[in-house]
């Protein structure tokens, strides 16, 4: 049956049709092939040098030859910064390791941040599968999180023996933190014992990393957050307020003391000084008056009438000025006292 006359059925292509169809492709291929010797040389050169690697100043490199570390077990196994000659893949493979870089690992498994949402805050309890926390030695609960900075210490161990160091470090820090928190009372953890606890966790972590030989070392370990449960927040705030109030009362008492003691001392000094001054004055006056009296007495011995009269007259002048009224009376006849006076004293009613 001849199908060539039927509509919608494609005609079977002959060989010459295929040649015509792929003629442009063939032309391009031939064009490339005529120049392939240069391209090939170029590509071969590029391929040959593709293994050469520049190791940056903060890196070292390990070369794997057929999957095994080149010069394994020798100092040459780790290539220092600079140009590193290596064969191209698949013969050799270069792995650069940033040994100077400080990596950060957040440890949030004992904190509610690890949950990623805060719906548990309205709950009256904590679901351990959803919310991280640590038990304290006195049966309380705290949320705690850390940030660990570390560097690669042993590039071979780090790259060859450990699948992923980050979760390992996370678990180790959590484990040590749990132990340290579990032996301390909550008040020590939240206040004065906090610093010592962080230091203990950091030290224990370093020791544990060394024991487990993970190829890393701790640069620093910081406590990012340490809080009591949200559900007890108000009670903790009340304690804090009480502590502040107590401290304020003590401070006010200290202020009172700081004010009253110097004040009393100042009064003491002033009064004693005044008394000394007055004593000196009293003695000076006494001495002066005694001296005057002695002089007067000497004079009175020699001229008694003059002295007595003068004294009387001087005083009488003053007395007369002070008196409300002065009356004169004639002397009585045959008076025995040629000079005499009477005084009438009138008291106020």
């Amino acid at each position, binding site marked *: 049956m001849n199908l060539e006359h039927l509509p919608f059925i494609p005609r079977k292509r002959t060989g010459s049709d295929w040649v015509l169809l792929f003629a442009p492709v063939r032309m391009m291929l031939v064009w490339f092939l005529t120049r392939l010797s240069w391209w090939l040389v170029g590509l071969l050169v590029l391929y040959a040098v593709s293994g050469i690697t520049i190791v940056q100043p903060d890196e070292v490199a390990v070369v794997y030859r057929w999957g095994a570390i080149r010069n394994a077990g020798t100092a040459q196994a780790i290539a220092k910064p600079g140009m590193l000659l290596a064969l191209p893949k698949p013969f050799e493979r270069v792995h650069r390791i940033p040994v100077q870089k400080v990596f950060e690992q957040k440890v949030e498994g004992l904190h509610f941040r690890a949950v990623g949402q805060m719906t548990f805050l309205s709950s009256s309890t904590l679901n351990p599968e959803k919310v991280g926390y640590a038990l304290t030695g006195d049966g309380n609960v705290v949320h705690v999180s850390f940030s660990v900075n570390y560097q690669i210490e042993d590039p071979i161990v780090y790259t060859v023996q450990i699948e992923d160091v980050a979760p390992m470090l996370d678990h180790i820090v959590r484990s040590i933190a749990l132990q340290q928190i579990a032996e301390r009372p909550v008040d020590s953890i939240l206040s004065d014992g906090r610093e010592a606890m962080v230091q203990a966790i950091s030290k224990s972590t370093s020791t544990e990393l060394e024991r487990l030989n993970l190829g890393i070392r701790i640069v620093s370990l910081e406590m990012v957050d340490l809080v009591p449960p949200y559900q007890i927040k108000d009670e903790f705030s009340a304690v804090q307020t009480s502590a502040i109030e107590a401290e304020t009362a003590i401070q*006010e008492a200290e202020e009172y003391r700081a004010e009253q003691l110097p004040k009393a001392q100042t009064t003491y000094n002033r009064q004693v000084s005044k008394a000394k001054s007055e004593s000196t004055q009293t003695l000076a006056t006494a001495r002066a008056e005694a001296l005057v009296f002695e002089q007067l007495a000497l004079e009175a011995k020699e001229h008694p009438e003059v002295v007595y009269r003068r004294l009387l007259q001087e005083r009488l002048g003053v007395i007369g000025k002070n008196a409300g009224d002065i009356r004169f009376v004639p002397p009585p006849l045959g008076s025995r006292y040629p000079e005499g006076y009477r005084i009438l004293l009138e008291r106020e009613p």
Partner: protein
Amino acid sequence: MDQPLMENPVSSTSLKRLRMVVVVLALIAIGYRASSTIVSEGTSAIVVRLGNPARVLPNPGLYFTLPWPIEEVVSIDTRRRTFETQHTEMLTKDKKNVVLVSFVIWSVSDPLKFFQSIGDIETADEKLNGLVTNAKIGVLGKYDLTALASTDTTLLKTKEIEIELLSLTQTLAAEQYGIAIQHIGFSRLSLPKENIRAVFQQMRAERKKFAVEFRAKGDEQASRIRAITDTEVSQIEAKMTQEVAELRGEAEAQSAKIYADAHSKDPELYRFIRSLETLEDVIGPKSTLILRTDAAPFDVLVEE
């Protein structure tokens, strides 16, 4: 077909040579790919011949095998890795429920055994979970909760529990699964959520007690400081009064002696002067002074 396609056609000799090179290279590549395997550092490989493990390639390097489907190479990651057990409640010796989550640092120690008994990492995690949890339930039943959390450090036995768990699981994991457990630690220690309410109540009561204690201690200390201050101020004032009195008394005594010494030289004159001074003090605006006209000095005004 033999017509030149371009003005500068490729010679047939060159084309043939090139084709040969390409074909040889392709054959080498295919042969290499099909019959070689590279075992990297941190891995081991098992050559499986027609479904049966034929040999283990424990060290890194280039190995040659028969092409697939005769031989197949299964790579096993032998690097250390971590696994965390699931949250499971368990009972302590003192009948307290705790949720103790552990982590395990492990690696494949026997690739062939691992391949035959487990096969992959995910299954290994499941096996380890069962192994460690089972051991944990048994071990924890021998310790009180205070062995895990207590302010009395002599009661804490966390390290001992970890070591006991390790010794219980290490041999089993190695013998059954070809797994080396390097370390078991506790990454979470929690109480069941039902118990946390009681913990919260206890914490609240404790906080209230502390708040009252703080306030009372503050007040007591402040009162003591004030009382001590008042006492010290009183002591200073008393000392001041005494010293002032002593100074004044001494001065008065000395002056009295001075006066006495002086006045003893002429007591009559002293009495006269004192009398006049007394009069000066006594005579005031309400007093009437009556003087005789012949009294001095008014006598000078009277005619004889």
